[in-house]
């Protein structure tokens, strides 16, 4: 078990002088093992990115703990040697005034200052080839001269230059065209085969389903359902999960017009409380599974 989230909570202060608080993530616990893709699914604002950022040390954790191989998150060089992230918008990940390969340069400056330029160049090229790009085509170019897919893959190559164990991929495909999107997804799948743990954040259920061993469904900062992907998608227990699934447009099947009728209090946010194991490896936070009188 390499990434472990234990009752993680993130409270943002909003309003002038932090007059009000707002819990973007509320008591979330799950884990990601080596060689596994866990997808984190939820609608906009459900707190997916916030969890990603906390894991990456880009934002503080209000309560609970996040550990990687038992080591708590720390926004320090050593931590980033093993934990890296790739973000949603490939264009905004590159400083537009510099050439795209500067992202590699930054890694070298921080982690491998002693490596010779030539050797480094070799490493970069092989990493780029690993993500199935042609180094000749992408090196020495400005970000706007490259496509989104290329940029996104360069970012993964950048992470590969380090000795990473965990990759947080936050909606890395939502800005990409369908045709390039699948290449990036396949790449993530390969990483997993190499033994990396991947946390794949998305709001596109079909993509999560395509890739992940396990799925965590998030709503208003709390986990409503989680478990093996097959089970969550095959037998969604929580009404919210069902509603989400029903809304996904499928190519060959019409929209399921039937909205879930048995709506309960799920819309009341985290009120539904604790997770119950409804099935082996399939947890749900729903009153129906808690001997609720209804």
């Amino acid at each position, binding site marked *: 078990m390499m990434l472990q989230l234990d009752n993680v909570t993130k409270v943002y202060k909003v309003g002038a*002088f932090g007059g009000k608080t707002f819990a973007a993530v509320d008591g979330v616990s799950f884990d990601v093992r080596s060689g596994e893709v866990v997808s984190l699914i939820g609608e906009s604002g459900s707190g997916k990115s916030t969890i990603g*950022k906390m894991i*990456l040390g*880009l934002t503080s954790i209000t309560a609970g703990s996040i550990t990687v191989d038992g080591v708590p998150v720390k*926004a*320090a*060089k050593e931590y*980033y040697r093993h934990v*890296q*992230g790739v*973000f*949603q*918008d490939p264009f*905004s*990940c*590159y*400083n*537009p*005034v*510099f*050439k795209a390969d500067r*992202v590699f340069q*930054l*890694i070298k*400056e*921080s*982690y491998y200052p002693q490596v010779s330029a030539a050797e480094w160049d070799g490493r970069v090229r092989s990493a780029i080839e690993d993500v199935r790009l042609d180094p000749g085509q992408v090196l020495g170019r*400005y*970000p*706007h*001269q490259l496509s989104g897919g290329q940029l996104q893959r360069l*970012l993964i190559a950048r992470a590969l230059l380090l000795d990473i164990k965990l990759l947080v991929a936050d909606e890395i495909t939502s800005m990409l065209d369908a045709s390039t999107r699948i290449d990036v997804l396949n790449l993530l799948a390969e990483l997993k085969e190499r033994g990396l743990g991947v946390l794949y954040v998305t709001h596109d259920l079909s993509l999560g389903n395509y890739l992940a061993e396990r799925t965590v469904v998030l709503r208003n900062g709390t986990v409503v359902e989680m478990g093996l992907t097959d089970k969550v998608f095959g037998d969604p227990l929580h009404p919210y999960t069902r509603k989400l699934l029903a809304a996904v447009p499928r190519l060959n099947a019409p929209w399921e017009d039937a909205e879930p009728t048995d709506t309960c209090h799920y819309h009341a946010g985290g009120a539904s409380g604790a997770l119950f194991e409804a099935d082996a490896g399939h947890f749900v936070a729903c009153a129906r599974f808690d001997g609720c009188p209804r």
Partner: protein
Amino acid sequence: MTAIQETPAQDVAAGAGVRREALYFAVRNGKLLVGFGIAFLLFLLGFAGPLVLDAVDPNAYGTKPMSPPSGEHWFGTTTFGQDVFSQFVYGLQTTFIVGALGGGIAAVIAMAVGFTAGYRGGLVDEILNMFTNIVLVIPTLAVLLIINAYLGVRSVPAQALFIGLTSWPWAARAIRAQTFSLRTRDFVALARLSGSSTRRIIMREIAPNMSSYLFMMFILLFGGSILIASSLDFIGLGPTEGISLGLMLQNANQWSAMQLGMWWWFLPPGAGITAIVGALYVANVGLDEVFNPKLRET
């Protein structure tokens, strides 16, 4: 009075291709060329002029007081027979120095405050913001008057320092706003994931992205410093040694140039200031147009 009042956060991120495009528009932008052209000519006159002028001391008394412009005295002479042209040339120099120093100091403070507040956010931001607002609301000329009157430090660098210390707030606010929007860009997060320190991120990731903006800001601070300095000079809080365009105006006024019909005494210094500041402002619009496609006339 600036073109960069808080403009809606513009897309400051200019890519290299955009840079090339910017250059393309820069050399075709009339405002930019005329603006910088005039400013540069005056700069040359101010710094190369003294080398070719024979008058060593622009304040030296001459033999022909109060004479109108002539071949001998291009801009005429003062009540004391001082050559107005020499004074003008030396005055330009001082004016540029005040502008550069004052503008520079203000820019440095503005950047320090703006970047820190914008990048750090949170409490640091609240405090710096409060501080900025305070300095912004206090009428700085009045403070300058008070401090200057009491301290009586009357040299060009001291004057520039005062100006620099008080004229930065609007720029800090603008930088803060820009930094705020840049800070959320993913490349900043990525730089952190690459182990860069905060300072480094500000200097190497954020600042380069706003270089055009910073440059424009400096120009405005530069012009502003010149105007403030001329006001101070005029009120009699200028440097006591040497000459500046503001001092020339003050002298002309004190020695009744207007009433005595010595227009050649008070016209050039004011025109010089107007020309420098105006040229810089015009160049600034030019730059704005170059960097901001929206402003270009299509």
